[in-house]
């Protein structure tokens, strides 16, 4: 199993522990991680695409073309990167006119994208579908006996018409991955609701984004969960930083699935980068 690792922006530049945990976890799962040298921002769909869809599509196509040149599929660890690159690949596969316009620009920098040239994958569905439960279980050394709140985020499963990964209203994929560690995925009200950060709202209307996060945090606290498990560094950033900004003593640690798997595999805490978290990661394990 070989993949081109698309690191994105928030993991490497804000929560490098998500990047290092992903690398360590994939290594133990015998996934051959190759670098996607020269990749850029996906670019962030909520903002770039909202401003100018052509700029968004063309920069995304460049990232796809870099992977195609390597003959590798792309592995993302962020719903934003996944959504952007997946939807861009879908558009370029369906709309010949868009493909022609994009390739006319890429050609000038010595690149080209072929429709269906690259598959865009997300860490969580890759683990679920390609690695599989049995291989994952074999790498676990420690049972994580805690109740946790899973947050899927929006752009992992939706739009479901083209993603076709799981039921967008009642998904189970990440809950199952989380429960392999021994943790209990608790149910809570509005579990499928957005964290509040997407669509450029975090930048333009931070108070609205925070109010949405607060509504989620209230439900998560009421559920008794001892941690939030996400599959997106942007949701991760929103939950982690908003708790500090709101200041109502939620103290619910926020972990990316890769970091949770790092703990289950017995990987040294120091390699999971919890120092970058605004909300201290104390799990009492």
């Amino acid at each position, binding site marked *: 199993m070989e993949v081109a690792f698309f*690191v994105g922006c928030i993991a490497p530049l804000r929560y*490098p522990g998500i990047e290092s945990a992903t690398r360590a976890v994939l290594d133990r799962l015998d996934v051959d991680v190759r670098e996607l040298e*020269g990749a850029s921002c996906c670019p962030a769909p909520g903002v770039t695409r909202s*401003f*100018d869809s052509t700029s968004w599509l063309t920069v995304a196509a460049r990232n796809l073309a870099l992977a195609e040149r390597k003959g590798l599929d792309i592995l993302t660890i962020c719903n934003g990167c996944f959504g952007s690159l997946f939807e861009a690949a879908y558009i370029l596969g369906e709309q010949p006119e868009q493909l022609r316009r994009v390739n006319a*620009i890429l050609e000038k920098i010595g690149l080209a994208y072929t429709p269906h040239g690259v598959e865009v994958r997300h860490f969580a569905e890759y683990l679920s579908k390609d690695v599989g439960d049995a291989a994952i279980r074999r790498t676990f050394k420690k049972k994580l006996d805690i109740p946790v709140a899973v947050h899927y985020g929006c752009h992992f499963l939706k739009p479901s018409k083209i993603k076709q990964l799981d039921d967008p209203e009642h998904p189970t994929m990440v809950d199952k991955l989380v429960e392999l560690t021994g943790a209990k995925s608790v149910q809570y009200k509005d579990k499928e609701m*957005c964290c509040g950060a997407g669509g450029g709202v975090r*930048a333009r209307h931070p108070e609205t984004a925070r109010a949405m996060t607060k509504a989620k945090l209230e439900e998560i606290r009421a559920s008794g969960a001892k941690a939030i498990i996400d599959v997106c560094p942007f949701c991760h950033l929103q939950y982690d930083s908003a708790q500090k900004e709101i200041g109502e003593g939620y103290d619910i640690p926020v972990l990316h699935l890769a970091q949770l798997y790092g703990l289950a595999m017995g990987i040294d805490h120091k390699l999971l980068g919890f120092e970058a978290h605004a909300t201290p990661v104390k799990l009492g394990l």
Partner: protein
Amino acid sequence: MASEAPLNVPDPVWKQTLLDQVGETLNLCFQCGTCTSSCPSGRLTAFRTRQVIRKAQFGLKDLILPSDDLWTCTTCFTCYERCPRGVEIVGIITALRNMAVRAGYMSESHQKLVRTIYDTGHMIPVSEKVTALRKQLGLPERPPTVLVDEEARKQVKFILDQTGLMRLLKEDK
């Protein structure tokens, strides 16, 4: 005077431009309001998805494009998933935002993000704190992206020059 002109005047030419971009699903909306009742932003703000779609159907561009509420949609896709008529709601909102930006309604906070991606190829600037932590984690100081590849960074700038992203910023007009 533009400020005295009525805003609720349908613009059929603009409506056709929008339809050309978003497709015919815009006309399928029958105003049931499933979108508004599903919208997490609508719980907290004056943003009403159903009303935006209705105004778009009528070509009421002057009521839509200057609206700050248009920017409270988190593009969560819940409305799109639940729409009984298959209206491409998020695609329509995105197209409206593209038009709003072209009409000069991009917030300063968003212009800052555009400059960051143009200058660095990433959305997040490099910080000393994170660089130190990367070293501690056994990662290279910079990820193997445009940040360590001048040629790659130039390619991203070239693309954005071709597509004209920077021309959408106010002071660059």
